[in-house]
């Protein structure tokens, strides 16, 4: 715990974000609010712009217009590389670096970006691996791990940088069913620990039990957002109702 206790979460605001790839208008004025330390789950059909919205938050994709606020301050003029160090991201396909050991995957950014010494980086990485239950895999290559283990390493890698907010892009969608639980448990734990999180997911059970806010996206906008109980028990928008009737 000592190695990671220094982080402070932030609140997140996404305001009227628009983005088009050519004629394809992927985001058409998306809004999202996540309170300090809260977890928001973003649900919606494929192609609704969920993953793209996530990428505009850490500016892997720059929005055409709109604003992204951390603790109420716009980050669109910040140095994007520095911004991304404050925002952890976990991908569907893990995106671990296959040519490096698990440990090296975690220490790379600590050494090169946080400028920690080799010893400090290794110590911190081992502590982080221990927290996700994979201390024994430090010297393995990612390919030798199961999908669930790889995703936990990816989460550890993001957490090692002590992010103020974590983004999850369908983190369990590529996993075999029996491996999903372990990763979701880890995410729930992180959420309970007070990390601000935006979770794009198809896991409705997770959204219902862990999220403070559930946002339903379709055609590039957040159509409806609210507490899980309201979204799942009393959905208002017809498209949300239709979506829920199909996935539940």
């Amino acid at each position, binding site marked *: *715990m000592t*190695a*990671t*206790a220094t*982080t*402070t*979460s932030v609140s997140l605001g996404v305001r009227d974000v628009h983005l088009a790839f050519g004629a394809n208008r992927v985001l058409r004025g998306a809004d999202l609010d996540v*309170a*300090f*330390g809260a977890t928001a789950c973003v649900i919606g059909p494929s192609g609704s712009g969920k993953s793209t919205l996530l990428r505009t938050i*850490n500016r*892997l994709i720059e929005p055409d217009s709109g604003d992204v606020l951390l603790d109420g301050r716009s980050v669109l003029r910040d140095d994007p*590389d*520095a*911004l*991304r*160090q404050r*925002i*952890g*991201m976990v*991908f569907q*396909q*893990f*995106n671990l*670096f*296959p*040519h490096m050991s698990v440990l090296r995957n975690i220490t*790379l*950014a600590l050494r*090169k*970006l946080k400028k920690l010494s080799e010893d400090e980086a290794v110590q911190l990485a081992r502590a982080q691996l221990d*927290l*996700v*239950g994979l201390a024994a895999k430090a010297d393995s*290559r990612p*390919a*030798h*791990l*199961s*999908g*669930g283990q790889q995703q936990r390493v990816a989460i550890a*890698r*993001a*957490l090692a*940088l*002590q992010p103020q907010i974590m983004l999850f892009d369908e983190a369990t969608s590529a996993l*075999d069913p*029996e*491996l999903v*639980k*372990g990763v*979701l*448990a*880890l995410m729930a*734990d*992180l959420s*309970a*620990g*007070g*990390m601000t999180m935006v979770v794009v997911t198809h896991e409705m059970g997770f959204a219902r039990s862990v999220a403070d806010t559930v946002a339903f996206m379709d055609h590039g906008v957040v159509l409806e957002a609210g507490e899980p109980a309201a979204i799942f028990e009393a959905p208002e928008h017809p498209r949300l109702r239709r979506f829920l009737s199909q996935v539940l």
Partner: protein
Amino acid sequence: MDPLSTLWETFFDTDSMREALPEMLTVGLPNTLILAVSAALLGSLLGMLLAIAGISRTRWLRWPARVYTDVFRGLPAAATILLIGVGLAPLGMEIWGPNPYPLGILALSLIAAAYIGEIFRAGIQSVEVAQLEGARALGFSWGEAMRLVIVPQGVRRVLPAWVNQLIALIKDSSLVYFLGLLASQRELFRIGQDYAANTGNQSALLLAGLFYLALTVPLTHAVNWIDRRLRQGRTVTVHPDDDGGPAALAGESALPRPNPTRKDPR
């Protein structure tokens, strides 16, 4: 003498070979290695620059890289070596005096760079975009992500093709003799040829050939070995999940507590 034994003596005259051997070992082999290795280093360096320029979004980098590659891959090696060696001789004179050797290395490097650049470019482009995204998401700049994550993976994937290029380079180094080397600068081929010309017996040239094979055949096998290792590296058996799953994570909360003053308990 019957034709067969004439043939035998033309190529396998041990006395001729023995006579040429010391110079092959002390002069020819070192020179061939110096030419090939230094051209490999310089060619790989230039090749990497060409590869990066070739995938650049800037047309003013991409375009010259394309033209360079087309020209130096399209010309016969002998023509390039002569053009560089003779054409740049006045310039070379200014820099290192009347010595064709560095120009030979330069010409070999420029040729190798065109091929190696294409090899590296193919390797780099084969790395999934997700890797770049993963690195950028951690906060690495484009340059850092390329240097630390993308290029190492890309180069690894094309290592066999790169070693093939080294083999070609070793063989092409025999063309540098065009430039008129000093006695002490002669590489394997030139020494073999000189002995053959002086004696009318081809055995020394055959000996040079054996030296080339001694260098290239092990490299060929190294390629196969690297290739096999890379392949096996990719199809690793994935262990059935000894994950532990939620059980391992239950108990006391396993995770960092960025902010203990959390909202309502669940």
